[in-house]
């Protein structure tokens, strides 16, 4: 920006000369072709994204009715969509699975990342844990689901689902939630670790120099710092997005009942032990690929799902100080931590 020196000097600012952008005209042909291709792929991606959103918006809003949010789903054959009810249960189901998954993944991921970064002894254990988490991050969710099936069908784990003929059913909200936590864990872990490594060392030094233990430093200084809060929240939100979007684990470990069916008579625990559906499994089961009972409602549910994931993405952008803009505290905190100069300094 050109700044005029002072108000009492009415001289006109000079015409500003800005550097001209480099053109591609002088590039070799191969570079120009590649440049054009990159450009085309970028534009193509935007088109696809917009197409998805617009398509889901049109389809979704066409079929979305307020009553869908309050009605229980009901099985309906082809051509009987009107009787197939709403998706109250899948919405509740999504909340339950996400809550269980993140309730396990958040403390575990934050704890592991902190231990690894601040203690990390013995070395071999730290390295092993790190590789293990990287591996979990790479395991396809269907593999996790099959693994969960093997584990939770043990008869002595029947209290988590319901007893079957010879083995436990191994399908319930709680089991799905537990396996879902493995999906979210690497995301929480990575975000927390990343923030920890970016904390300025002098924050730790300052605390150690006051005679504080590592544990106190972590609990009272590191984790409560704005940077860490942002990092951990980002991990948690990313993890939630991952859980909400997964289908494979639900297909195998939650069953294909549309309604949330409680087991036994204990109110909450019964529901957790029972089978049911979430938005993703509802979409799958109602789409032509599943039983095809109610494709229109699948579209409506898909729209809802898309919206919730978009909201979570926006939350991440906001948290990490993207276009959404960070909060004042985060901005001040980050700048001060990075430069060591105060907010007004």
């Amino acid at each position, binding site marked *: 920006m050109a700044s005029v020196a002072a108000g009492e000097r009415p001289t006109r600012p000079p015409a500003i000369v800005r550097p001209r952008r480099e053109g591609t005209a002088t590039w070799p042909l191969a570079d120009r072709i590649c440049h054009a291709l990159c450009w085309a792929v970028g534009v193509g991606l935007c088109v696809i994204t917009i197409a998805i959103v617009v398509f889901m918006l049109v389809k979704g809003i066409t079929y979305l009715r307020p009553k869908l949010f309050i009605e229980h789903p009901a099985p309906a054959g082809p051509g009987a969509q009107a009787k197939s009810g709403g998706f109250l249960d899948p919405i509740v189901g999504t909340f339950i699975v996400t809550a269980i998954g993140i309730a396990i993944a958040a403390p575990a991921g934050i704890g592991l990342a902190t231990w690894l970064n601040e203690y990390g002894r013995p070395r071999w254990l730290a390295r092993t844990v790190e590789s293990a988490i990287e591996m979990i991050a790479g395991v396809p969710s269907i593999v996790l689901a099959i693994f969960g099936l093997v584990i939770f069908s043990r008869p002595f784990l029947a209290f988590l689902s319901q007893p079957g003929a010879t083995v436990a059913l191994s399908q319930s909200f709680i089991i799905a939630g537990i396996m879902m936590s493995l999906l979210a864990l690497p995301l929480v872990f990575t975000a927390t670790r990343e923030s920890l490594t970016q904390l300025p060392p002098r924050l730790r030094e*300052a605390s150690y120099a006051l005679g504080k233990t590592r544990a106190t430093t972590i609990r009272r200084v590191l984790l409560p710092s704005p940077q860490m809060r942002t990092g951990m929240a980002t991990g948690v939100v990313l993890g939630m997005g991952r859980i909400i979007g997964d289908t494979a684990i639900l297909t195998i470990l939650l069953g294909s009942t549309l309604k949330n069916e409680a087991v036994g008579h204990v109110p909450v625990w019964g529901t957790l032990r029972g089978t049911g559906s979430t938005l993703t499994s509802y979409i799958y089961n109602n789409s032509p690929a599943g039983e095809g009972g109610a494709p229109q409602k699948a579209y409506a549910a898909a729209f809802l799902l898309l919206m919730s994931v978009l909201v979570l993405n926006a939350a991440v952008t906001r948290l990490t100080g993207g276009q959404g803009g960070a909060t004042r505290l985060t901005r001040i905190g980050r700048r001060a931590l990075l430069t060591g100069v105060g907010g*007004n300094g």
Partner: protein
Amino acid sequence: MDDLDTEPMLPPPIRRIEVDREPHVAPARPAPNGNGVAVAAPRPRNVRPPALGARERMSIDGVWLAYGENWVVRDVSLPVRQGEVLALIGASGSGKTTLLRSLNRLTEITAGAGRAGSITLDGQDIHEIEVNALRRRVTMVFQQPNPFPMSIFENVAYALREKPGGRRRGRRSQLEPAVREALRRAGLHDEVGEDLDRSALALSGGQQQRLCIARALAAEPEVLLLDEPCSALDPISTAVIEDLVIGLRESVAVVIVTHNLQQAFRVADHVAFMHLGELVEYGTSEEVFDHPIQRRTRDYISGAFG
């Protein structure tokens, strides 16, 4: 660098007795009466009463410090006295900051740090004191102001809280007098006393550094270590902190590392000049600055003064 008047030292056989390379250590003179201290000095210096009854709190005795295979402090012996300010001066890489950090065992958080020789606090080897207890008795202020991203109150209260065996979570009303007292000692209370709940990060650099000093004082240490506390500050903030340091020496032993020779001259009672890990010269401010004995000291001081 400067051509040295002694040959570079060989890598150490630790604890070897170095008979012929004793650093010139002037015995601590009994402080002259009146303001004789200031009269001899050609440069402006804060006129102040001499440190009376300086008593030795820490003793650095034949200390070697290493990072990995690299010896950065070689056979340094110094007394740290309460009632006076000790300044460590020397070029970058002379080992003065490492020596300072070893006094509260902060060197230990760096991987590969090694040591030899003994450092005692009130006659007790500091490596036999529980490390966190030691760091509450020997606190440190760093080059860059490093307040915690919390309120002013919390920054100081943090040093008071969670003392082992003490109150884990003192209530605010219980902590407030001590917090305010620490801020007063650091000369910050008049500026921030009205609103202790402001974020510490909203303070100016000089205020932040005084907050860090308040935090370090809140733990009621016996020794205060200052690692170039003014190098990130403007001259006005620097002057405030220098006055503060001089005022503190009665209640705590102060060791200050500084690149600023004027500052060392202004605040210190005793000065130790280090070069490439060796203690070259130790004496009172006047001795070291006005009548240095070693050529390296002369070169450094005159070079730096221009």
